[in-house]
């Protein structure tokens, strides 16, 4: 019964490769509109991608050819379907393929870009300021002082602690799987439900002012407006993120996200990070979001986070065993 569903998934991936959707707009596309005249972006979307944020070393083109990308995606699908080798660290894990969690099992856009960063044009972060370097050195120092990653829950990445994931951001970037979003639009409000951590991004589009600077939030404070047929979301009031900041950003980062629907099955998502404390100039990235399927099932991560308990307990057991092996000293 479940295996019958595999055929559907494999076919879906094959179709994704055949119908190449690029990030450039179809000039004759008529975006569907809501009663208030604004474009309708509602539905389920998926931003899974193979494209890295920064351009890989040794590549200085802005675009791959279609043939290169299709070949790469085919090879990735084959690699992902193969099981890991027993006895390796990678093998101490459930198999993503069996749960439908491979990238090749997700709705995928064929993105010809060599990096998500489109500006600076070299596809890399702009240089960091001296203050940015000091800030991030201090963060690295704080993480070092906190001890090993298994010493305490608070030393683990925010994702393992079920506090924040890449998919939430903002900006919203795909992780390995479950890169699903549901967009609903009411007259004064756009809501983006991020599957991972069931994060609700509630974005007013009625001109509500920003929060005072004294109020800080992990996901910042977002306000939206329409620029023609593009939804523009400005987010400020971030926190300092407990030693783990987005790509080294400061709490004063200003983020601008832009959504444009370029075809029935593609939303172009473009974001600009403006953080003069950390980077010498703003930087911009772009990712196509592909039409996905629902439903989004409750991702009650913190409530089900047995893994964190287990890994801490495991580390304490290992230490206990190591202590018991040692001859009595001091």
């Amino acid at each position: 019964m479940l295996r019958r569903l595999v055929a559907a998934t494999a076919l879906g991936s094959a179709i994704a490769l055949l119908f190449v959707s690029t990030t450039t707009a179809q000039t004759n596309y008529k975006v569907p509109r809501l009663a208030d005249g604004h474009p309708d972006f509602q539905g389920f979307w998926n931003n899974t991608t193979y494209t890295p944020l920064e351009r890989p070393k040794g590549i200085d083109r802005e675009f791959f050819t279609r043939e290169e990308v299709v070949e790469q995606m085919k090879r990735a699908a084959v690699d992902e379907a193969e099981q890991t080798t027993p006895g390796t660290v990678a093998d101490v894990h459930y198999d993503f393929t069996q749960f439908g969690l491979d990238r090749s099992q997700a709705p995928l856009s064929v993105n010809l870009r060599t990096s998500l960063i489109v500006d600076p044009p070299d596809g890399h972060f702009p240089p960091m300021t001296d203050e940015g370097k000091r800030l991030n050195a201090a963060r690295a120092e704080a993480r070092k002082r906190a001890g090993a990653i298994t010493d305490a829950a608070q030393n683990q990445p925010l994702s393992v602690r079920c506090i924040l994931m890449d998919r939430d951001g903002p900006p919203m970037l795909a992780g390995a799987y479950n890169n699903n979003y549901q967009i609903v639009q009411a007259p004064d409000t756009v809501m983006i439900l991020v599957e991972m951590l069931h994060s609700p991004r509630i974005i007013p589009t009625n001109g509500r002012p920003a929060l005072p600077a004294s109020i800080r939030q992990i996901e910042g404070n977002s306000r939206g407006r329409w620029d023609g047929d593009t939804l523009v979301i400005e987010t400020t009031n971030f926190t300092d993120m407990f030693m783990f900041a987005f790509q080294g950003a400061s709490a004063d980062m200003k983020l601008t996200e832009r959504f444009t629907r370029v075809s029935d099955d593609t939303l172009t998502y473009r974001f600009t990070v403006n953080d003069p404390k950390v980077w010498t100039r703003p930087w911009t990235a772009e990712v196509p979001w592909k039409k996905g399927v629902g439903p989004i099932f409750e991702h009650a991560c913190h409530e089900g986070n047995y893994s964190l308990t287990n890994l801490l307990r495991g580390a304490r057991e290992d230490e206990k065993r190591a202590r018991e092996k040692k001859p009595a000293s001091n």
Partner: protein
Amino acid sequence: MKHWVGRACIVAVSAIAVLSLAAPPAYGQARPYRAPRTADGKPNLSGVYQAISEAYWDIEPHSAAPGQVRELGASNAVPGGLGITDGPLPYKPEALAKKRENFAKRITLDPEIKCYLPGTPRGMYMPYPFQIIQTPAYIMIVSSYARAVRTIYMTDQKEAPADSWMGWSNGHWEGETLVIDTTGFNDQSWFDRAGNFHSDQLHVVERITAADADHLSYEATIEDPQTFTRPWKIALPIYRRVEKNAQLLEFNCVPFVEDLIYGSLRKPSSN
């Protein structure tokens, strides 16, 4: 000719009869309120709301009582409450014993303390704002506490695929009332801080009606044949947050409970 007068009188009397048969909402004006409409012609319930009730401590009528944390003194003490239930909760005998145990051990057992999702209906009367975002196919109810999200499926309705904390909700309109039918609960959430609980057989039917521009009338029927001998009801008004720029602020409480949950597993003599 008196004929048409007589008929007009009959029509008028019938109209009055119909108006009085339409049950007024539990709170608000006697004449049913007609909420402004959305583009698809439905009562517009969008907005930021909050319950003002002691039910989050204990949904049954209860006296004031001391809190459980001595250092918090009156801040953690329990205020008396009139309750929102329609009578004593009809627990089965073994379930009543469990409720009492829950109450006695609430400081370790109450899921709210660990920043776990509140479940339904508890999320609707916690002392934090929630927001209704209404569209034709989906009505989203988002609570600031633990960022709890409820997706109310208005068209694409299916059975709960698996159990969840907030349940799986299918909704429909009955005139001015949004009726939400929720199943697919796990057995992990509570109804309040007093240890009132349920099994995974919980079935909740809520009726939400705009009582006037700034109040919702909220009623819910709770059914759980594993825990209770019969269904029971709760009812309370819910208030619109009318201040300018009313909005949900982020209340991600997970970082605030990590020491509580994982502190005993911290490496000894680490910071």
